[in-house]
């Protein structure tokens, strides 16, 4: 078989020829690769199984991160989920309401006490007897003899 070894191919022909050659060599290489030694095949199988078990573990982690789970909080249990921020907010709201309620009750109680004292003061000030009379020794003596 004689063939002119001087390349007269155009660029696309040459690319195509190279690709054909590459594919042909690679397929023969693949044929050879399929006949790997049993110990290598076994180690590759082990590696694959390891990778699969890691993938399953990683998948479980992803699912755990996206699904609600029951978690312990001290002696109680609560639902945790990726919406934990909203969950915490929901948990804190009743506590905040309780604190506000107590503060309100204390405020109302203080106001009631102030009103009672003011009422007594107002009664004393608006009485016919002037408050200075209670400091007068004569008036005190008068009150004592009157009771007797």
């Amino acid at each position, binding site marked *: 078989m004689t063939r002119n070894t001087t390349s007269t191919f155009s660029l696309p022909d040459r690319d195509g*020829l*190279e690709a054909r*050659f590459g594919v042909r060599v690679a397929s023969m290489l693949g044929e*050879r690769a399929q006949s790997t030694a049993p110990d*290598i095949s076994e180690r590759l199988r082990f*590696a694959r199984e390891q*990778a699969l078990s890691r993938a399953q573990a*990683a998948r479980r982690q992803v699912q755990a991160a996206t699904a609600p789970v029951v978690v312990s909080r001290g002696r109680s249990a609560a639902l945790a989920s990726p919406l934990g921020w909203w969950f915490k907010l929901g948990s804190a709201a009743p506590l905040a309401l309780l604190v506000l309620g107590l503060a309100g009750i204390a405020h109302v109680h203080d106001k009631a006490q102030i009103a009672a004292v003011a009422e007594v003061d107002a009664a004393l000030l608006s009485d016919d007897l002037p408050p200075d009379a209670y400091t007068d020794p004569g008036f005190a003596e008068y009150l004592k003899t009157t009771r007797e």
Partner: protein
Amino acid sequence: MATDKELSDFLKSVEKRAFKRTAFAVRDDDAALDIVQDSMIRLAEKYVDRPAAELPLLFQRILSNATMDWFRRQKVRSAVVHNFSEFGGAGDEDGEFDILEVLDNLEGTVGTESASDSVSREQILRIIEVEVGELPTRQREAFLLRYWEELDVAETASVMGCSEGSVKTHCSRAVHALAKALKAKGLAP
């Protein structure tokens, strides 16, 4: 998200080629097996949420990176960089070499045991394997990714971290170097 079966099928389909490709690079079967195993585990752990269609390219990237990491650990980086910067030897300049001769001869061996008078098919396959292993690192990487892993030029460039033009150059030089070497071994008329 790739299912367990898709991941398993993919790994099964790629594991032997991955091992061979890595063994070509590191020239040590045990190290190649470790690298392939690490790459499989990295793929499984970090990219388990990716669709099955993305696995081939991801795996090739991981495998290439793991191989580079191995070279770094071996502290032969300077030698690797030297190899990676190679653009082939004198034979690569032989643009006039007619690869059609070798191609015809290789295609003539398909399904036949008597394609060559002096070289059996098994020997041919072994010679091809040796010659591919002898290619400069970057040329071999480009050749195997393009023609063995069947990545396109853009994907190969992405895995190798170079331009598409470089991939084409590496592939072309690899093909010519292989054709010349195989002809020298009597695989051409």
